[in-house]
Each structure stands twice: as C-alpha cells, then as structure tokens.
C-alpha cells in the first residue's frame, strides 16, 4: 500500500507546506516544537544516566507523527488524550520545557500530577490535555467520552487520542472505535506504530500489516501515513479533523514510525532489536528529514536555525535548573486529593 507520504511528496514538492496551507511561520513552529521535544528528552537521558532522576520515557523518533497530527488541531479548543511518548503533542498544546522538567523531577509544581505520576503522564484541564494513567488504551474511551460531550452540547471541538500499536491490542481500543463510530463522534485515533510493544514485535501482536485496516470493521476511514514525514501526518490529520468537525465521525490514522531509544530508561533494547535496524531508522529521523525539506524549500536559513537552537538550549537549561531546584511535595500532601475536596495548593 502506497503511503500518504509518497503522494504528498509527489504533490507538494518544494513548497509542500504552503500547498497544505501552512505559513512559513507555522511550518517553523512545527519544526521548533519537534526539536524542543527532542532536546528535552535528550537532556532527561543525560540527567538520568548521571543518577539525578530515576526514569525517562522518550518521544525520540516519533516527533513527526506527534507534532504533525497535533498541528492540525486547535490547542485549547480541541482536546487531546495523549500517551506517554507524546511530548510533541503536549508541547504543541501549550506545555513548556519547565513543565516537562518539573514532571521529570517529580516536583510539587509538576502540572500533570504534583509529582505523583511518572514522567510522560500528561494532563492539564486548562490546556485540554486529558490526564493519562499508565494502563494503555484506556484513553481511547476517554476521548470518545470527551467527544460525546462536545456533540451533546453541539460544540465543534475535535478530540484526538494517541496510542501505540501495542495499545491497539487492548479491548478498550475496540470498544472506543466502535462507540465513536456509532455516534459519529469527532474523534481522531492516532496510532503511533513503532513496530514494538516494549520487546514484542508487530508480528507477535497482530497478523495484519496495518492497524489502519481495522477501521473498516467499525465503518470509518483508516489511513496509513509515514509517521516520520511531519507534513504527511499534518495532511492526513487535517483531513480527519475536517471530517470530524463536519460531523462525519472518526478517522484512524496509523503513523508508521520508530522509537530511537529503549522503551524507557529501565529497558535494554539490545535484547530484542538489532543495532542495524535502529541505525536504518535513525537515517529516517523525522527532524532531520523535515529540516532538510525546510532548508531546501528556503524556509529554514542558517540564522533562523541558529536562533531556534539557542532558544531551545536556553529553555532546556532554564527548565532543568528551575525544576531541579523546585521544592518537593511535603509528606502531608500524600493524603490530599483522594477526593475533590480542596482547591489546588
């Protein structure tokens, strides 16, 4: 099956982003958010390896799929129910490097959870990011519920939810897609298929090539897209968003991608992945690829690149310093917020 990418590349050529209706500024913002997601992540690994923080879980390699799809949404108006890799999604939706680092160091000020959850467990009511726990695929049903509420109130918000191809094996995935389709809900299901659920390769997870093929069994479109081509991701997401806003129901987008790191800082991926395989995918780095396109299309110049790099460096430094020094919660906070009794401290 030809991927969307090839089509888009054929169509758009050197000004693909403009032919997709993206201004240069927008195209550059997408680039910067990808890079910021990557930079924060890389810094986390560094700090983790120095023993200054116990746990990292990465977005690296999947930023194209994340930022590309998220960019088709309206932050603050639309909703996202992301999963733990979706640094790119939540940064697009308004989280900051500081937020990321506060969560990484599990500080009291961590906006996701006040230091209660592991990094990667995003949530912010203000930013319309539905809180996520660790059990995979539960968020697909939450997304359907959020979209149901929008429909009940006749609002045009779209809800996008993100998950790995591993999560697609869960019963909740089936139930969510079925429900969203019955009610023609404005949901976009984004499967970031990186080929593995921790160590388990796709061939042991399913007997099909494309998760997207399941959409037909629910009565809505499924599309496969090159997840490392941010503009291709943007394009299919934009189509899905339009469809959803029209009231025509959900779309399943399967973004074929790869994770560059081990599953998490607790994992050793050499036990189940060949170094060659990882190397091949590193060649397809969505950031490099997009940078190349932006340069070739004249959108990204050296001075701009320089500025972006400096901004990111500065943000990551600032965030790290700020968060590392930020206070921990006090032991008394342990028993707070089991129920919604009190205002947030």
């Amino acid at each position, binding site marked *: 099956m030809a991927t969307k990418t090839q089509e888009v590349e054929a169509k758009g050529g050197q000004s693909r982003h403009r032919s997709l209706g993206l201004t240069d500024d927008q195209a550059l913002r997408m680039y910067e958010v990808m890079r910021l997601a990557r930079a924060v992540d890389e810094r986390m690994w560094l700090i983790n390896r120095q023993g200054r923080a116990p746990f990292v879980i990465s977005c690296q390699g999947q930023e194209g799929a994340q930022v590309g799809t998220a960019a088709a949404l309206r932050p603050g108006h639309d909703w996202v129910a992301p999963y733990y890799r979706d640094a790119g999604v939540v940064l697009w939706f308004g989280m900051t490097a500081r937020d990321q680092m506060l969560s990484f160091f599990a500080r009291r000020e961590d906006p996701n959870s006040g230091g209660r959850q592991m990094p990667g467990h995003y949530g912010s009511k203000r930013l319309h990011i539905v809180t996520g726990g660790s059990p995979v695929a539960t968020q697909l049903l*939450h997304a359907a519920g959020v979209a149901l509420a929008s429909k*009940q109130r006749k609002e045009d918000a779209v809800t996008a939810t993100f998950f790995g191809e591993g999560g697609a094996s869960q019963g*909740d995935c089936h*139930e969510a897609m079925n429900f969203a389709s019955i009610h023609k809900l404005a949901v976009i299901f984004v499967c970031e298929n990186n080929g593995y659920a921790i160590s388990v390769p796709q061939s042991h997870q399913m007997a099909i090539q494309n998760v997207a093929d399941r959409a037909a069994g629910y009565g809505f479109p499924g599309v496969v897209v090159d997840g490392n081509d941010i503009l291709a991701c943007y394009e299919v997401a934009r189509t899905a968003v339009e469809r959803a806003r029209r009231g025509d129901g959900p779309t399943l987008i399967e973004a074929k991608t790869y994770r560059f790191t081990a599953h998490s800082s607790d994992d050793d991926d050499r036990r189940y992945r060949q170094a060659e395989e990882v190397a091949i995918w590193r060649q397809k780095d969505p950031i490099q690829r997009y940078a190349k396109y932006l340069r070739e299309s004249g959108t990204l110049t050296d001075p701009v690149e320089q500025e972006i790099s400096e901004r990111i460096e500065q943000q990551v430094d600032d965030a790290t310093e700020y968060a590392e020094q930020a206070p921990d919660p006090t032991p008394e906070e342990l028993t*707070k*917020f089991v129920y*919604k009794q009190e205002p947030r401290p």
Partner: protein
Amino acid sequence: MAVKTYIEAIREGMDEEMARDPSVFLIGEDVGQRGGVFLASDGLYKKYGEDRVIDSPLAESCIVGVAIGAAVNGMRPIAEIQFADFIAPAMNQIIEEAARFCYRTAGDFNLPMVIRAPWGGGVHGALYHSQSIEATFSHIPGLKVVAPGTPADAKGLLKAAVRDPDPVLFLEHKRAYRLVKGEVPDGDGVVPIGKAEIKREGKDLSLIAYGLMLTYCLEVAEKLAADGVSAEVLDLRTIKPIDQAAILATAKKTGKVLVVHEDNRFAGIAAEVSAIIMENAFDALDAPVMRLTGPDVPAMPFNHVLEDAFMPNAEKILAKAKELAAY
C-alpha cells in the same frame, strides 16, 4: 410525602436531576427504549431523548470509559451497569482510571459521575445476577460507594451522587426494588454521602447493615424487642467513606455489635467495621464484634435450596443476634 417503592424513588431521583441539570445524562445497556431491564429508567428516553438516554453497545468498559471522558468535558453522566455482576469488564476503567483521576492530577481533574449497579441476591438470579461487589470497590481509594436501604435514602443519595464532584458507585438492591416501600419526602431531599443513620434506637446490642439487610435487621430488632432485647439498628447507607463516628458511637453505647451483609465474608465490609471497632472501642466491648455474612462461595446458586442457604435472612440474623445478646 408519599409511599413509594425503592425503584420508583430511584427513577424519580434520576428524572428530577435530569430536569434540573442539562449536563446529566444516562448511558447503559437497554436503558433507552426498553427503560432498563428493571425499568429503572422507564419513560426517561421519551422525555429526554436519545442524546440524554443512550443505549450503549454491550460493553461495560465502554460505558464507564465514555462516562469518564464526558465528565472530563463538563457533563455529569450516570452510567448504568445492567447487573453488578457485569461490572468486571469495566474494572480497569473504574479502579485504575476513574478512582485515580483526581489524585493523579493533584485535583486538576475530577469526575462528577455516577455508576449505578443493581446488586444483591434473593431473586433467583444465580451466580451471575446476585453478586455483591461493595467490598471490592470500597477497598479502592478515590471511589465513593453508596448502598441505600430505603426509598427515601435511595432518592436522596442518588441526588447527592449526581451532584458529587467524585465518582460514586451507587448500589441498588435488586430485591429491594419492588419489595421495599417507604415514605419519600417531596421536594429536593438530598441525603448526604458519608453519613450513616440510626434507623432504630436501642441499648443492648447494635445491628449494623446496609441495603436489603437493613430491612431484615429492622424485622429482627422488632422480634428481639418481643424477647426483651433492645437492639439498635445502624444503617451505614454510605460504605465508603464510612461513617466511623457513627459506628463507634453505637459500639460504645451497646458494647455488642453484629455486622450483617450478603457479600462474601473474607476481607469484606464487616471485617473493616470489626477492625475499626477493635482499634477504637476495644475497651467498650462486652462481646466480640460478630459477623453474619454471605459465605466464601463464588456466589448464590440458582437452586432455591442453595440460594436460601447462601442468603442472610431475618431468621439467621435473629439467631446470631441472640447469640450475641447472650454472650
């Protein structure tokens, strides 16, 4: 005040809350056109339309998961699980998601949602239409669990549950639906979550119960009175958060406590009540706290002999209460 059945009180409670607040809606299997398999929502589909009374696919995780999402986005869903016995497919959504939303976000998210579940036995429901689930869910921090025993409490607690900012598991005893009748106050009689009520004052011993067992305990108290034993009956009404003050007050008053429930015994609600009294009123006890519960058997069999053997009833409670009185 008018006399109503337990199920009428619940239906009225839902109806009034839906009329009062447009963000309240009902979702579940057969709740729409059918009006629910027990007719708890009879008439609501016609009155409020299919957007507010949603016949879901046969998928409990879906029902609860969708309710969570809707609650995130400003609605106040009432999710019906057709029988408590079928709540297990939704446990991941209830235990790992709903119960933890508030805590895991340090209060940023909260879920105003109700999960209604017809529960309990004595209705020839066999292993899968008779189960008690209160211990399982009460053990989970972040959930509130309510189990009214009278029509007035059923209606008042349902209203409280709908208005509560947190997920509430609302247990409706199936046998009480049509068996239990009582006066229900007119108007907006909200009964607070977390407050037990003494349904009969007494001084020799205390019977602590909830749900259908309340009816039996009141019967037993009447019989004990004829024998000259004055039994106090404490109706927990809310199981979680439990009304520890009320439990300790009655334990200290009478010095003898019998806790009654249908649910299996091991690590059940009676064990918790016993442990609470142990820790906080040990010196006030004139006898060990006793438990009369369903046995540790997977559930109530279909055959009536076995069902009767499982089910606590007035006769069994009376015998145990007499043992306690004589201690």
